[in-house]
């Protein structure tokens, strides 16, 4: 079992580290997005006003659309996201040489609107925290399907590694309280154990629920058997969805004020908040509106919704109670996304995620530390160890550089640049590629120290660059009590400090001596001392 644990861990370790780091960052997806759009004002308007402005914006921007979808602002996200579906007749074929992929064949339009003004936000173009969220399971540059299968494969390996890791540990309780400092291999092993055991329930939960989030893709067989040739029936049956929407009628009618509909929904839910709404056939006489509850207080990711007649304001349908398995899946999914977490619980999730990163990183390093004496004996570093060394440096020390570079890119690329959000993502991968290349050219201990120092410097400089390029820096945010933005900058300083400490340790590290070597040195030192003692005598003579 120890053997299986070692190899399953090593094989997928580097990709797992990327997945873990991106996933951990995704807990603060909204906060990262806010930091990366410093132009965005802090939201101060009520949901009703925001919804009214959203409707006004869409009436002007997309009057022909078949449906409008609006996500209302919440304390974590001050901007309103919205998209709309254009009728088929309005879709233009993609222009010649158009570089950007158009999602949904160009049928969807989208906008981010400032609820304070009702205008499209005048913020820099960025993918913000959404990049990390997508990177976590879609990776980048490769087709989404391949990426998800690859990530699922890694997750399955991880699940096996967790179970075998527990089995390997006969003394799991005793090991938990063991840390042998400055003992080379032993210290790495203890470190790996502590980081794994401390957050073991979290690791097991996050790996299993991670597979659950994509299980319809990984295991479509049950659906195929129970619903031959009718996959949609499964989704509408299993997820207790609202009925399909009728086609739009010819007649036109004005909708009731959105405020009235939101009030009706809140009354129906006994005070629960509204997260967003979808309005079908805006302007038509048979317009309907689905109002979704805000997720945030429930474990499950499936949020209830209500359907109203948008012209009369009458309640038409409430989403039925879903079955046990659906609720189980919803809770699993919800646990993985942790949208329900308030700031304390979110911080705990984040720390557990970081511990997961440390566990994976120390695991792959442990392999190399264990392997090195065998190579040292033969006097030459073999290809396998060199490869692992290079990948370890490039992943463990290189990925922090890439993350920091992404934030640098956000502040330093010209604000009006074309395809700016793609350029930011490229900065991430250029930085990572450079770190990997350097690691492959010279996979030595000092390379560890250099890359860690570089990462530390880049993180420590983020608040400085922020202060030089924006008006949302620590000097302002601390004073006004904007803890999201201030917290981001302070977190960057903390990461920089930790990386600098790691770099210092790596630079000063001396290889542990074997007992024979120690004895040899002691004898040599004693002989030297003796020679020194006798030297003055000779001089006197």
């Amino acid at each position, binding site marked *: 079992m120890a053997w299986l644990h070692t190899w399953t861990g090593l094989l997928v370790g580097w990709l797992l580290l990327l997945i873990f780091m991106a996933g951990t960052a995704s807990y603060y997806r909204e906060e990262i997005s806010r930091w990366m759009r410093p132009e965005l004002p802090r939201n101060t308007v009520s949901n009703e006003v925001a919804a009214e402005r959203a409707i006004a914006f869409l009436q002007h921007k997309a009057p022909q659309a078949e449906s409008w979808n609006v996500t209302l602002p919440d304390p974590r996200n001050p901007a309103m996201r919205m998209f709309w579906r254009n009728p088929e007749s309005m879709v233009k074929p993609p222009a010649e040489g158009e570089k950007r992929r158009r999602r949904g064949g160009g049928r969807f339009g989208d906008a981010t609107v400032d609820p304070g003004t009702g205008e499209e936000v005048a913020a820099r173009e960025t993918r913000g925290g959404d990049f990390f969220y997508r990177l976590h399971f879609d990776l980048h540059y490769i087709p989404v399907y391949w990426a998800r299968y690859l990530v699922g494969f890694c997750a399955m390996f991880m699940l096996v590694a967790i179970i075998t890791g527990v089995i390997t540990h006969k003394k799991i309780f005793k090991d938990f309280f063991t840390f042998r400092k400055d003992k080379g291999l032993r210290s790495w092993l203890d470190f790996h154990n502590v980081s794994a055991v401390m957050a073991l329930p979290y690791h097991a939960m996050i790996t299993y629920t991670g597979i659950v989030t994509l299980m319809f893709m990984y295991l479509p067989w*049950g659906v195929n*058997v129970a619903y031959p040739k009718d996959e949609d029936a499964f989704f509408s049956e299993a997820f207790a969805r609202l009925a399909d929407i009728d086609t739009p009628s010819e007649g036109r009618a004005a909708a009731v004020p959105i405020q009235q509909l939101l009030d009706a929904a809140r009354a129906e839910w006994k005070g629960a908040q509204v997260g967003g709404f979808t309005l079908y056939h805006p302007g038509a006489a048979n317009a309907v509106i689905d109002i979704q509850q805000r997720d945030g207080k429930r474990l499950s990711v499936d949020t209830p919704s209500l359907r109203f007649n948008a012209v009369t304001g009458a309640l038409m349908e409430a989403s039925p109670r879903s079955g046990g*398995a659906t609720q189980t899946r919803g809770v699993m999914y919800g646990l993985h996304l942790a949208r329900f977490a308030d700031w304390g619980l979110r911080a705990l999730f984040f720390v557990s995620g970081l511990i997961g990163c440390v566990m994976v990183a120390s695991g792959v390093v442990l392999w190399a530390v264990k392997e090195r004496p065998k190579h040292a004996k033969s006097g030459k570093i073999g290809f396998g160890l060199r490869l692992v060394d290079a990948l370890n440096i490039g992943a463990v020390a290189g990925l922090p550089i890439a993350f920091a570079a992404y934030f640098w890119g956000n502040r330093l690329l010209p604000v009006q640049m074309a395809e700016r959000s793609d350029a930011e993502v490229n900065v991430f991968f250029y930085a990572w590629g450079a770190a990997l290349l350097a690691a492959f050219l010279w996979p030595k201990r000092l390379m560890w120290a250099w890359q860690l120092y570089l990462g530390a410097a880049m993180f420590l400089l983020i608040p400085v660059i922020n202060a030089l390029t924006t008006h949302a820096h620590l000097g302002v945010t601390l004073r006004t009590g904007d803890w999201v933005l201030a917290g981001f900058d302070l977190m960057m300083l903390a990461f920089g400090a930790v990386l600098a400490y790691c770099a210092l340790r790596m630079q000063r590290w001396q290889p542990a001596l074997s007992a024979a070597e120690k004895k040899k040195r002691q004898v040599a030192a004693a002989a030297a001392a003796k020679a020194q003692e006798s030297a003055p005598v000779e001089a006197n003579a």
Partner: protein
Amino acid sequence: MDSTPDASWFSRFGSFFARPWLGVLSRSLAAIFGGYALAATCAMFFAVALPIARGQAVLTGMLVAIVLCACAALWAFATRTALRAWVGILIPTALFWVGTELLRAGA
């Protein structure tokens, strides 16, 4: 009749299959492909066999199959021989498959 060449061929053949890395490869394939086959057939069987609403049965099957897939990988490496690894995974897979087909034919 001298049987030496035959015997040596046979023993070489035998020793080739006794190589540890082949056992590891075989177990790995059993864990990855056998494990997935087991999960897939388990999901199918639960979808048609559980006496609950169809959609709920499908979901239950998926949730259980994920755990079963991990257990199959464990079994593949925990058991004594590579042959046992395959047998221990393929027999339940076959049972799930047959059960699914029978229930579908009966439905």
